[in-house]
């Protein structure tokens, strides 16, 4: 068992087309693996009946030679994507029993392309977290463990369920969303590939909103090639999202040619932060060496406003969240608190939100509300948006000078322990996003590639940041980095 579920998407495409396997066999194998993985807590719901029904139809299509890009490929969906008639609650108590009567654009595109839905995946509540511990479903657990240490580790967050499900071979690929690193950080922690596209590449329609100017959906997969395949199917203009881009979506897989001769790879000195573990620094240098050996030019660059990215992010994201989450008022959807006869509508709002939101979500709503309140709006929100302009121009200057792709570590450390005392202070948790938030603030595409392991055998990721709309070239460089890194994906099954 698990032999089929551990296939990559591109390999499964081939085997299905050849008739060596059926989609029902593939889907059943994933379902067995998913059902036997309760200790990982990656799936918050398994949609077995729907999956088998879709798989049977896929097999009919294959027999009729009516094969689309993802025909018969079983994937997992982060609980933040609205799925028609399938409960969706963004891991929050306040959306208990919410059943969308509509489908998000991204998932609809995946179904139109023939993909099979295995179920919904665990995440941090409303995507606010870096460890999957703020979820109403309880924390998701990383399939990787440190050598000789049985302690449960975080898969990262917020797309922790997606990272775990892909790494543990419970599915062939998964969707994630990334507001400040929520695809790339869990990808780095679970030894998987995670791509955040250019802002506007994927429609946000039907994705439960966190911070609308930063949120992007993207793929989480076992290989760079698989990310290219999934991204092609997820992308495209959508009438229902005015910020989605009216650009032609290329076949991203066609960019993968293992040739990066002459590409200019920028190494930003500001990412060499104090206290960076030696092994992260070594991994980074090693990655640059490998790209150089493959024919790329390594160039030292400066992105001077980098250190202000995290504080700017933690003004802008909570401010947008406080506004987006105002809709959870106990009137139109979700849970309403029990009220006494004497209690009025204001008490209904306050009690509903007190009971329905978790600690971290309340904290961010309050920070955002404060930053937007009268007298502070200019000092915090507007100032942060000005700093954001500076961060974006740092990147444009570097790209204008001829740099094609920027190479950095994805995270400052490998996966840490669940219930880590060192992460009790919210700020310590926020520091996890230090290398990833810049791409969200500037709207740039960025990918995390598993590039090595620390001395205890835990996966480490390197991040590549590309020019706007140039995911194709970004994926091509990532494909070379992946090949040269020879990351061993095999993870011991203890669950």
């Amino acid at each position, binding site marked *: 068992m698990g032999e089929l579920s551990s296939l990559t998407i591109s390999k499964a495409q081939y085997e299905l087309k050849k008739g060596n396997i059926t989609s029902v066999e593939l889907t059943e194998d994933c379902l067995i693996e998913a059902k036997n993985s309760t200790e990982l807590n990656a799936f918050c719901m398994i949609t077995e009946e729907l999956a088998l029904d879709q798989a049977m139809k896929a097999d009919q299509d294959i027999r009729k030679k009516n094969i689309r890009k993802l025909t018969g490929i079983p994937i997992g969906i982060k609980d933040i994507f609205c799925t028609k008639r399938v409960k969706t609650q963004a891991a929050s108590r306040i959306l208990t*029993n*919410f*059943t969308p*009567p509509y489908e998000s654009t991204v998932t609809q595109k995946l179904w139109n392309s023939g993909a099979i839905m295995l179920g919904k995946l665990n995440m941090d509540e409303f995507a606010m977290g870096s460890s999957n511990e703020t979820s109403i479903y309880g924390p998701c657990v990383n399939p990787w463990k440190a050598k000789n240490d049985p302690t449960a580790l975080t898969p990262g967050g917020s797309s922790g369920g997606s990272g775990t499900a892909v790494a543990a071979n419970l599915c062939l690929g998964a969707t994630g969303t990334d507001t400040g690193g929520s695809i790339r950080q869990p990808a780095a922690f679970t030894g998987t590939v995670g791509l955040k596209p250019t*802002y*506007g590449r994927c429609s946000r329609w039907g994705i439960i909103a966190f911070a609308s100017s930063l949120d992007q959906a993207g793929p989480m997969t076992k290989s760079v090639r698989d990310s290219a395949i999934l991204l092609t199917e997820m992308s495209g203009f959508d009438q229902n999202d*005015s*910020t989605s*881009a*009216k650009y032609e979506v290329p076949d991203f897989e066609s960019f993968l040619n293992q040739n990066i001769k002459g590409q200019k790879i920028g190494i930003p000195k500001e990412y060499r932060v104090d206290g960076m573990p030696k092994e992260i620094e070594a991994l980074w240098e090693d990655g640059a060496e490998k790209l150089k050996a493959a024919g790329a030019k390594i160039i030292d660059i400066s992105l001077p*406003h980098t250190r*202000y990215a995290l*504080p*700017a992010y*933690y003004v802008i994201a909570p401010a947008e969240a*406080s506004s987006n989450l105002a809709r959870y*008022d*106990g*009137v*139109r*959807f*979700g*849970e*309403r608190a029990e*009220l006494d006869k004497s*209690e*009025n*509508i204001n*008490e*209904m*709002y*306050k009690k509903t*939100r*007190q009971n329905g*939101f978790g600690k971290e979500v*309340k*904290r961010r*709503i*309050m*920070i955002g*509300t*404060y*930053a937007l*309140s009268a007298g502070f709006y200019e000092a*915090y929100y507007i*100032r*942060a*948006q*000005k*700093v*954001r*302009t*500076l961060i974006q121009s740092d990147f444009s200057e570097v790209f204008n000078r001829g740099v094609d792709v920027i190479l950095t570590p994805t995270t400052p450390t490998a996966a840490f322990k669940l219930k880590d005392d060192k992460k009790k*202070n*919210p*700020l310590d948790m*926020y520091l996890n996003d230090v290398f990833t938030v810049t791409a969200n603030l*500037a*709207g740039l595409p960025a990918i995390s590639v598993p590039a090595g392991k620390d001395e205890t055998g835990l996966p480490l990721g390197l991040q590549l940041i590309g020019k*706007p709309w140039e995911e194709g070239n970004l994926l091509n460089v990532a494909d070379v980095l992946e090949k040269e890194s020879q990351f061993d994906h095999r993870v011991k099954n203890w669950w």
Partner: protein
Amino acid sequence: MAIDTETVKHVANLARINITDEELVPLSEELSTILKFMEQLNSVDVDGIDPLTSVTPMALNLRDDIVDDGEKPNQILMNAPNRREGFFTVPKVIE
């Protein structure tokens, strides 16, 4: 600037979230720490810089102003915690 417990109460009210008395002190401490972290932004020279308004340089897409969806009150009401005769219902608002 530190956030005192009175400010916490005020912000919680603006955000329409009930908080208990026991939560006030820890919240004021946590929020103050986060706010202090944000104040690093004060050391950036932002004179003459425009705030970012569009992440990607792209004109927003406009569509024709026509009705192309609707007539589905049941779908719209199906997730409401309380509804009656085609309406969302809430506690009495008018005294």
